[in-house]
């Protein structure tokens, strides 16, 4: 049986619209993934708890508030605390180029700006999960 990737999509921070997150969620569903959509205004604690209960294979965050650095830092910290460092995190939204190296340094596996196509994101997830599976098999 083909195993479906389970992807958690969350919208941390206080800004109030989740159009982008929903577009990505639908695209991933249409690519055959099981997408757990958690909605607006998620705290880092809520996101990591959901990812844990849902046994998510990857976590996608949509952040438009500008607070990406502290939010992502906290989420990565919580993932480590819960021994979930192996769950790849990807990020979408408006991210200033200067912050990208910092985010990558925190362990963010993929960063997608407003211009990124959903196809790119689908490919990224498929490749990342395939690589992770390869690692595990070794």
């Amino acid at each position, binding site marked *: 049986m083909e195993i479906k990737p389970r992807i958690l999509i969350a919208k941390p921070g206080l800004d109030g619209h989740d159009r982008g997150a929903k577009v990505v969620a*639908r695209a991933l*569903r249409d690519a055959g993934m099981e997408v757990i*959509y*958690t*909605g607006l205004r*998620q705290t880092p*604690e*809520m996101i990591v708890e959901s990812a844990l*209960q*849902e046994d998510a294979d990857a976590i996608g965050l949509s952040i438009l508030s500008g607070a990406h650095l502290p939010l992502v830092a906290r989420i990565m910290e919580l993932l480590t605390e819960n021994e979930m460092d192996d769950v790849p995190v990807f990020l979408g939204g408006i991210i200033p180029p200067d912050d990208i190296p910092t985010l990558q340094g925190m362990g963010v596996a993929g960063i997608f700006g407003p211009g990124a196509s959903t196809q790119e994101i689908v490919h990224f997830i498929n490749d990342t999960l395939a690589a992770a599976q390869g690692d595990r098999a070794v």
Partner: protein
Amino acid sequence: MNELIAGVLDGRARAIARLLTLVENSESAAETAVTALYPHTGQAHIIGITGPPGSGKSTLVNEIAKRLRQQGQRVGILAIDPSSPFTGGALLGDRVRMRDLAGDSGVFIRSMASRGSLGGLAQATWAAIKVLDAAGFAKILVETVGAGQAEVDIARAAHTTLVVEAPGMGDDVQAFKAGILEIADILVVNKADRPGSERVVRSLELMLHLGPMGGTRHHGRILTATIPAANGTSSGWQIPVLPATASEGRGTAELVTQIQQHLAHLQMSGEWQEREQERCRHELRQLLQMRLLARLDTAVSQNEQDALVTAVAAREIDPYTAVRQLLNHFPANHEVSGKSASTT
């Protein structure tokens, strides 16, 4: 696997989550897990929540769980949403309405895709319930795929079935036609803040009174269709029709009271055992069906099966003859029937 089983029995969230994934993805993992966990199951009160899409099931689950938590009960939640028949993907959005439960280690929420199952549950839901049961959740809330139809499966899987209606969800008679009343232990008319809700309450009450049981139902007419009632008397449970406004938490205290009363009723009337019996019977037959088909697939190649299908489609042979030919390939078939014939 052994480590995960131990973790589940300890109630550790990570182990529960991992085992649920295994059980969902692999039939043989489900077998191993259920075999190990089964002696630790049977404690939980399983509550099904079904009803049309958007009627407020998830919002109600959120409210019910909050109240059960106030009573100190640990709550496990399985929320099923449909898989796309075309891509196999799924958008599981029930958690959006359950955010009040975040940060409480006495609650475990898991979203499940239906993966092609039609009855409102996923095939793995039955095993997933056992995982949560063994993990020590006293109450397990199972939200079905939103459907206008009566979801008989949930009534089989649950001890207490809530059917959620709301005003403006199609004409009231439809609920009756779809057999909703046959599976409900408790009827909830949600969105009581909306116009028309009183009319929905009244028409449901009327239907209950007009029904063959006059509002008192022998436990699940559908459920017991195959077994005669032990004594033929009605079990005496009055199906309540409860208005609620889940989004504001109104009516949900009474709802939880009724859920607890239904549990007490099941236990005192002996219906709990009857339902367990019926549930196990159904589950056994489901498993048997699956395993027999799997055996057939081992005995007869896909090509051979395809050739038979083609022959039936071409009207070269009829479906009965095709099935007889398949059964002839079935090595165990002769043996089993031969043996049982000689011993009886």
